[in-house]
């Protein structure tokens, strides 16, 4: 059943219209004003009796009146409603032109035919000046932020290519320096006394360190920019672990650290780049050795966790301080080891390891307790059709 509202007298309706915060104007077929609400009166200072039966041309002087009049005509002649936004032209509506002061607002205008009346139409004006100002501000902020982001991206790209070029150019002369120093050390041009040998050794060792730093920077840049080639194939975990420990044996003797290996009972296969995974394990094993005390043991092991192989590198060393944990994978981050053996590090090893593991759809993480030791573990998905497809997709998309 249709409910009747208790508001049915003209006075209440008039009062509602007068309190509206929009300008309401009714025009007839000759575009003469037939109604002018209180909002129009208070905003323009022109009273209703002054404009009734006046043509719209006499009340508003505005070049945009052509557009408004077009819409008014359409409403009267065809019955079409229209919405005129300020978006397409920066148009301001002078609210009066027959008094000294003209108040200009940025309007939003809606025009519609009045139902059940012949040839009358309603024009509603909303003042959107403040909203337009806000939106312009928003646009300029958004544009500035966008330009800033673009500039930062360009700069980062420029920096990467600069680093790559410079590193490459440094490597060539450095290689011949190391070669020459090696020949000197080997006694090719005669023997040196102890003081000379000592200096020569320092020069040789530091040249090698510099070369490894440059190689690391180049590696990192290549992985980050996606220009490095990954040679993915099915590889055996036990084979990889054996290779890693045997490769570290010499270093272990040198620094008096014992590497132990626990292989998988049933070997597993992962889809990966053998050399790069070996690089990751070498880095983790040498870090573990650096932060262990002489005579201690570093354990390398693997175990299966669901669809992953977890490779762990466990030491009983000094542990990683809390403050250092969050930045450990950042570039050029190095923790002081107790006897400063990390002087040989570049601070790039873990950053590179993390990128390599992520290219395998894997994860690198660690647990560490100060004074008790650290375990780094690398989780790599076992080779399966889905995983192989995902990795191949990753490589294609860089």
């Amino acid at each position, binding site marked *: 059943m249709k409910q009747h509202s208790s508001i049915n007298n003209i006075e209440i309706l008039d009062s509602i219209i007068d309190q509206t915060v929009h300008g309401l104007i009714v025009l007839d077929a000759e575009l003469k004003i037939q109604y002018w609400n209180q909002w129009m009166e208070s905003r323009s200072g022109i009273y209703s009796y002054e404009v009734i039966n006046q043509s719209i041309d006499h009340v508003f002087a505005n070049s945009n009146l052509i557009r408004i009049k077009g819409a008014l005509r359409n409403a009267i002649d065809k019955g079409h*409603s229209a919405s005129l936004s300020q*978006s*397409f032209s920066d148009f301001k509506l002078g609210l009066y032109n027959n008094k000294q002061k003209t108040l200009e607002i940025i309007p939003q205008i809606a025009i519609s035919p009045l139902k059940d009346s012949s040839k009358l139409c309603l024009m509603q004006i909303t003042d*959107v000046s403040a909203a337009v100002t806000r939106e312009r501000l928003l*646009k300029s902020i958004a544009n500035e932020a966008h330009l800033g982001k673009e500039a930062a991206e360009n700069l980062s790209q420029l920096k990467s290519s600069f680093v790559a070029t410079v590193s490459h150019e440094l490597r060539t002369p450095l290689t011949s320096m190391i070669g020459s120093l090696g020949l000197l050390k080997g006694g090719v041009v005669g023997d040196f006394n102890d003081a000379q040998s000592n200096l020569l050794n320092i020069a040789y060792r530091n040249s090698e360190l510099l070369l490894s730093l440059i190689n690391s920077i180049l590696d990192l840049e290549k992985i980050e920019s996606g220009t490095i080639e990954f040679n993915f194939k099915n590889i055996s975990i036990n084979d990889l672990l054996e290779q890693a420990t045997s490769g570290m044996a010499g270093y272990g003797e040198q620094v008096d650290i014992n590497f132990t290996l626990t292989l998988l009972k049933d070997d597993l296969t992962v889809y990966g780049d053998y050399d790069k995974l070996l690089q990751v394990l070498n880095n983790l094993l040498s870090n573990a050795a650096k932060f262990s005390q002489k005579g201690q043991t570093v354990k390398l092991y693997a175990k299966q966790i669901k669809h992953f192989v977890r490779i762990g590198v466990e030491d009983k060393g000094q542990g990683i301080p809390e403050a250092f944990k969050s930045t450990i994978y950042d570039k050029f981050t190095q923790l002081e080891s107790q006897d400063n053996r990390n002087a040989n590090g570049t601070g790039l090893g873990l950053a590179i390891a993390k990128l390599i593991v992520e290219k395998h759809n894997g994860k690198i993480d660690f647990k560490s307790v100060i004074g008790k030791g650290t375990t780094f573990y690398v989780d790599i998905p076992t080779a399966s059709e889905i995983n192989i497809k995902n990795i191949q997709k990753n490589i294609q998309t860089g």
Partner: protein
Amino acid sequence: MNKLNELQQDILTEAFNLGMGSAAASLSEIVRSEISLSVPNLTFIDKHTAAERLSQNTDSDLSGVSEGFTGPFCGKALLLFPAEQSLELVRLMLQDSVPLESLTAFEEEALNEIGNIILNAGLGSLADMFGSRIETEIPTYTHGSTKEIFEAQNSANSLHDVVLFLQVDFLIKESDINGFVVYLLDVDSMKDLTNLLDVYLSKIS
């Protein structure tokens, strides 16, 4: 579902293309650059099929304009775009490049105005052809999934089950933008429209 015969379809397509011609002229004037609009095809389908067709064209939501109309047949007219196409269209027309992923309030207003011009022109052209008057309501901006938009158009006394579905191609500054004009009608209105077409066809043949 009442299908249009070939003649009815041709005459409707022609009327809409005439309307799009005048809409393109108005829009070109507003943005001061050449815009062309065309309706390559139109069809009567049910609401479900219309929703499917609209969703086919995009993974994202739709943005557009809706306005009610009354006359010899009544219903709701909508101009809809995949959200990213509406962004492109408005920004091409406003000659503005805001690095934001959704329309700002005034870009919505601009889309409202564009939609209003196009929808009024289409309906105006039909009204001229039938020698009658089709009144339109003030347009409102609409955004959401096809389902949400269609459901929002239903009112207490109208169940729009039939859809007159038009593809509208915009060519603006070498960019192609595809939109859709959808007239939601109830079954009676659809009959009224086909009757009007038959009367018109009998007059001209």
